[in-house]
């Protein structure tokens, strides 16, 4: 891998964009890699969390936005909690996903984004998550038709999975959605 730094300063704009979106000082990171050391998803990632930050520091926008890591991050905040430099890595990952969507970069983890979308649409529709519909729609859209299907009877029996949605205050939820979209 080779990286050219010349008088074109637009590359460094990316750092500012991420900082603005996340409200986090990217250059506070001194690359101790404690985030990567504790990340439960690290084994699946193409770049470790600290590497994502490093690439962001150097302005490697394309590489960062195309990475699987930013989609695989579950936002568990283990990294955020443990970071000695108070870098809220989970917030940075959120910001990177937002920038990727805004810039219409095709997510390298298609299913993750699909899940996010369906999750949010059920919330919008019912005021809270409705697992039954969400799993059904996700399995159909993703093409993994029978994914986790055998877990359904047990979940139904224990009441963790409902046949009908439990409606909450749908109107208020819609207002919240509208409010965030206006921002």
């Amino acid at each position: 891998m080779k990286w050219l730094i010349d008088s074109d300063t637009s590359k460094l704009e990316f750092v500012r964009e991420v900082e603005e979106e996340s409200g986090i000082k990217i250059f506070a990171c001194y690359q101790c890699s404690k985030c990567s050391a504790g990340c439960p998803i690290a084994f699946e990632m193409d770049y470790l969390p600290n590497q994502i930050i490093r690439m962001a520091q150097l302005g490697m926008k394309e590489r960062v936005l195309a990475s699987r890591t930013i989609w695989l991050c579950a936002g568990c905040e283990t990294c955020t909690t443990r970071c000695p430099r108070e870098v809220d890595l989970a917030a940075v990952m959120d910001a990177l996903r937002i920038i990727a969507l805004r810039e219409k970069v095709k997510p390298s983890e298609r299913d993750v984004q699909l899940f996010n979308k369906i999750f949010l649409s059920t919330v919008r529709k019912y005021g809270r998550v409705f697992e039954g519909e969400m799993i059904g729609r996700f399995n159909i859209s993703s093409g993994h038709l029978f994914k986790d299907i055998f877990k359904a009877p047990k979940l139904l029996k224990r009441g963790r999975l409902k046949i009908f949605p439990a409606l909450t205050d749908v109107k208020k939820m819609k207002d919240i959605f509208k409010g965030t979209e206006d921002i």
Partner: protein
Amino acid sequence: MLVVDQLPKTELQEIPFKTKIPRIGVFICHCGINIAGVVDVEKVASEFAKIPGVVHSIDYKYMCSNPGQELITTTIKEKKLNGVIVAACSPRMHETTFRNAALKAGLNPYRVEIANIREQCSWVHQNEKEKATEKAIQIIYSILEKVREDQTLEASHSDVEKKALVIGAGIAGIQAALDIAQAGYPVILVEKESCIGGHMTKLAETFPTLDCAACILTPRTVEVSQTPKIKLYTYSEIEEISGLVGDFRVKIRRKARSVIEERCTGCGICQEKCPKKNIPSEHEEGMGTRKAIYISFPQAVPNIPVIDRESCIFYKTGKCKVCQKFCEPEAIDFEQQDEIIEEKVGAIVVATGFKQLGKDLYGEYGYGKYKDVINSIQFERLQSASGPTLGEIRRPSDGKIPKIVVFIQCVGSRDRSKGIPYCSSICCMYTAKHSMLYKHKVHDGQAYVFYIDVRAAGKGYEEFWARAVEEEGAIYLRGRVSRLFEKDGKIVVRGSDTLSGTQIEIEADMVVLASAICAHPSAIELAKKLRIPYDQYGFFTEAHPKLRPVETTTMGLFLAGACQAPKDIPTTVAQASAAASKVLGLLSQEKLSHDPITAVIDDEICSGCGLCVEACFYGAREIDGIKQISTVKEVLCEGCGACTVACPNGATQLKNFTKEQILSMVDVML
């Protein structure tokens, strides 16, 4: 060596211990498990309990502890011992401790001997416990032979010349000289250059507080010139040093300045009128020019010019003398010769500083080839308000303001293949400072720093470099640079960043090399004159890295500043004050005691061949003109034994290391 007779004399004389019958005590130290973990100390103790002449043999956990020393003292008194062996660590560690313990009991300290069963036995034979025990016994047997023949010796005393010499007037030398002078002792301060202040005069601002170097240094240089107790010799070098602690004889060469210092008013008209221009200025590190007669910089102390005879038109052609014509006080003296001054001092502080690595080691970085590749001290000059660009950051080739500046750390340092495996210690911090100051002056510029590690161990240092990165926007790239090359008026820097696993190429406008801090090229020559040890890199060696950090192995000679190892200003100043306090400790003594273990001469058999005179490193031996035999100057003798080996007929012996003693020590071993 200073020795152990700090107790009042009366106490010593009360107890008679001169008896022909040996009454020896053997004390075996466990040193925790250092010795006892390998050597069977109880067996050793019981072995010696059986030996005739040994009246006491005992082992103890820590002999050097207070109860351990007490054990020795009380046993000497109770059993009326006239010889003591402490089998423990190296005599370098605790010989003095145990000799003092003996002194407390009224035993002559030179009847105490150390058997080294730690460094020379237990530590090196950890896997052979039985053999180690055997060896420990052998070692003690041989020391026993020595103790039997040891004589009672008394330390000799000499006067102290209550004056100090400080060599080098950088910040270290200045601090040491001021400290000593403020305590009331006269100081001779010798500086090789035409003015004082050293490297610090070239610096712009200093880390980690960014206070201006000139603002904190010039009050000190002025104070030196105004302190009556300090006699300042600039443009002078040490020619020769002889003598010893308390009585050093120093010859100082005052190089011909071609200007009579007493007459010169420092008006500067000579410099103004001198027709020989454009000589690269040493003070500006070649980034600016000076005349053939010059004052290094406006705030120079002393404010007296010097003629560079290599460049001066008069010295080349015999004509010119323009400066002389304009000099009203008639201070110019073309006939001036070097002058040798002799001084007598009691103690010496060596503060000769360092030199930054030149262009010889890193061809791939093109220093000296590409104009826009400069070293860090040149960058300091660019930043300095009194520098060649009056503090504006402009690159040397075309005077443009550089928008991308790459700083490369560890140029030479930590590079074993180039023979500089050590860390230069200050580059991390001054590079952080440089990147910061650059940003202060070029707001739209970007600084990149190639580094291997950032070593920020001082007070406020870590916060300082974090500030460079987080607030001043310097981008740190972790890796070495492979090479630099010119392309379309840019310097292309090819390096890498291990943190992102990327090869990096930067099209820079200017590159600054943090070149290694090296010993001054003349350091070794000086070390030989001073008889002080130096390491393989030419840095002077302290007597002990932890416990005697400003002393040398030669008594009365102390170290301060970067001549000992690369170091920053706070550490240098601290070390200089430490050296000064050591000097004061010495000068405040009425008399100095000397180790009585010196060479003695048997007049009867000396043939006056003079081999001992040649062998003596300290000038302590000479041939008596009348008797035609050799003599020993005891105060100069360090007891090294070189003359005793050189002596062909055994006329020269070392006290308590006589030929008979050494032979019987060897005999008992075989």
